[in-house]
């Protein structure tokens, strides 16, 4: 286990290095430069201003030079300074991270609980009314565009019923914990809907397979109660493929929900990414994308390790 972990961690170094090259190249390949925001306002811009701006940012240098400069700083732990806000990238990411983590973690937990309950129920009572409804709703959940769903929820719960706020994280002039939680409900719900749909389907089909496995029959033959058979033996094993899907989705916790955060004006990493994208703010984009890549790699590793916990037959060599 120790050697396995060490090897996987060592493999991360060249992997991240490779990712940084690809990401840098892709970002630079997008047409348009950081001066686009200035020029895009439709005002009359003095061309020498654009040149001075590009020179200060260093984007008038060849891409290779820019990459080496970025890498040298990154190796010292310096992710650079945002082109548009003139602030350190690390600070900008760190101040946006809590909002993203909060939104994603709450929607993740909510989705995990509901999906487990729904998936288990659907597998145990196949073709029941609830199973049919859940199956239909799952297809709807996966197919529904997030921005549209978000706006419809705003229309119903905020504009028509007036129960919940439309956007933001607090009511101006009257912030409180309760008020903040009310702001969390709609974006949290929108984000969890797709995961509930996907995960409950995975669990349903996985549990249907497992229920006919030999060890489940053995457990029944031992005279265990059906609740123990399902809860301890079947569901636990059925969760293995679901967990790997969930673990990959955990990486989203750090990279943010781009569309949901924009529709609900939630101040997370996803919105920062969109802003940086339109402004061609290369250092911010690099920072966010690398952080996202890093978390995907780490959670892949965690998912692999978790298999061993869920299924003792899996060994690491």
């Amino acid at each position, binding site marked *: 286990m120790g050697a396995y972990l060490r090897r996987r961690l060592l493999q991360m170094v060249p992997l991240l290095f490779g990712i940084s090259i690809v990401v840098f190249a892709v970002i630079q390949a*997008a047409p348009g430069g950081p001066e686009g925001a200035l020029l895009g*306002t439709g005002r009359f811009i003095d061309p020498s201003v654009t040149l001075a701006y590009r020179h200060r940012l260093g984007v008038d240098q060849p891409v290779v030079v820019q990459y080496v400069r970025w890498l040298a700083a990154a190796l010292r732990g310096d992710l650079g300074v945002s082109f548009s806000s003139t602030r350190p990238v690390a600070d900008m990411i760190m101040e946006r991270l809590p909002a993203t983590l909060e939104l994603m973690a709450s929607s993740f937990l*909510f989705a995990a609980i509901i999906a487990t309950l729904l998936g288990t129920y659907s597998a145990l009572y196949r073709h029941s009314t609830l199973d049919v409804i859940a199956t239909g709703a799952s297809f709807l959940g996966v197919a529904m565009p997030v921005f549209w769903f978000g*706006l419809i929820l705003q229309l119903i719960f905020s504009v028509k019923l007036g129960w919940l706020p439309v956007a*933001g*994280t607090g009511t101006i002039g009257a*912030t409180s914990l309760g008020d903040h*939680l009310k702001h969390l409900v709609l974006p949290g719900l929108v984000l969890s809907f797709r995961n509930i749909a996907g995960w409950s389907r995975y669990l349903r089909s996985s549990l249907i397979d497992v229920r006919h496995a030999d060890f489940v029959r053995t457990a029944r033959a031992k005279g265990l109660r059906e609740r123990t058979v399902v809860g301890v033996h079947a569901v636990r094993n059925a969760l293995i493929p679901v967990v790997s899907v969930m673990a990959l989705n955990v990486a989203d916790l750090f990279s943010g929900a781009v569309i949901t955060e924009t529709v609900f004006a939630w*101040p997370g990493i996803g919105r*920062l990414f969109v802003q940086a994208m339109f402004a061609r703010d290369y250092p911010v984009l690099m920072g966010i994308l690398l952080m996202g890549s890093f978390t995907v790699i780490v959670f892949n590793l965690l998912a692999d390790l978790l298999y061993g916990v869920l299924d003792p037959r899996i060994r690491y060599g």
Partner: protein
Amino acid sequence: MRRLIAAALGLTALTGCGGSARSSGDSKPGKKILRVAYDREIDVLNPFTSQNLVDISFSMIEGLVTTDETNRYVPVLATVIPTRENGLIVTKPDGTVDITWPLHEHVRWHDGEPFTAADVCFTWKFITSPHSETYNREQYLGITGCRTPDDHTVVFTWDGEYSYYGGLFEAVLPEHLLGTMTPEQIVNYEPYNRGSKTIGTGPFKFAEWKAGEYIRVVKNESYWRGPTYPAIDEIVWAFIPDANTRLNALESAQYDYGQILPTQVKQVANLAGYKTHLVSSNSVMHLDLNITTEHGRALFGDPDVRRAIFQAIDRKAIAEQLMEGTVVIADSPINPSSQFHNAAVRAVTLDPAGSKRLLDHAGWVPGPDGVRIKNGERLSFILLNRAGAADRIAIAQVIQSQLKAVGVEVGFETLESAAWTQRWRSGRWEAVVSLWFLPADPSLTGLYACDGANNMTGFCDPVLDTVLKRSDHTFSVAERKQSLDEAQNMLTDLARTLPLYYNVTPEVVSARVGNFRGSGTNFGSFWNLYSWTLSR
């Protein structure tokens, strides 16, 4: 099952305790708080180096002048705008010009330091530095010197007559804070860019910038206009980038002010407690054709072909149906609210039959597929669209179908915003529907002169050049009006561009807000924030 769902909801709620939850007391109840649903998060607060429009900054930072809803200059830190008539503009025997700006006394920066004429000279030095990155730096380069006969008088020496002198210095920087820094250091100075040391002389002081959420400013208790101003305690600009979300937020009465899209106006027509103002945004939506490329020159080099294309486009349908009657058809680039607008100009009259005759006459005859041909070249071009600009894409589609009816083929190429801007600026395109924001001073030189910094079309007419340059170098409003009238006529005669409509910004304002007057210039509708009121 129900209990489990309730437990799950509770857990969700509990995890919400961290992150951006804030304690109450950020804004005490009972205060008069103006809540603004703002369409973007700005980059920096320095009004000279921001890449965005900087109306938020102007609540804190004042300049010598601002502009009102009719595009006229209104003095702010200056007591009066210099003119020849009031004796504050004097041309010297060597042709140079002294322009004297008398300044208000007893004005203090937010940190208590006095505002003086030296701050204005310092601001001039910063802007004209090659490193200031001020978008209209070029306009300041005619100033050759700055003098301060006393603390409340500043005199600029210009190397000649520049009509736009009155609209410059829309902000002033504090010398006592930034005076020891180089221009590069000022551009990168985070405390001034970000708020902790953003000081101005304005009616509001910086309080807080919550990244991704809002900027909050509070009343300047010792504002120089006296204790009556401002009448509002706090302003919060909440960043809500999505237009539909902004509309929903306004409809649920969460904000006092917000900008929406022209196509959303009908939805708020009956919104109780709000009024929608169609504020002229001092901008003109137009169709430009380009002769920079060989193909473009072959197609559009003949003014009759351009005229034929323009005649086939139904601008009335675009303004009244597509934009739902919220906008006004444009006949010249200069907005009717400006004193320099030429009301007699008619850009073009819709005449598809006449369009066909003109094209026939010019030698473009219908080919086998209906598209006209001349010397083996098809009358077919690509219109460059900007992804996400729904209004412009819809206009492009109307143009495409209307030109098809006269035998002109229009294809589309759609690029993402920054990529579109780069291509547009490079001149490598054939046709484009785009929008120009004119400053309060409507100099057309940059747009239409042969060497105009913003002329990307390849068009060049020496006579128009002379007229445009003449309009830029006079202090006489009458002379300038005459030149600009002539220029607007020539743009039509040359079929240089097709103005489509004057764009508006629909601004939804709560009935609680008083003294809202609107403005479509760089200052935006917040130019007179000091006098806004807010009833409970």
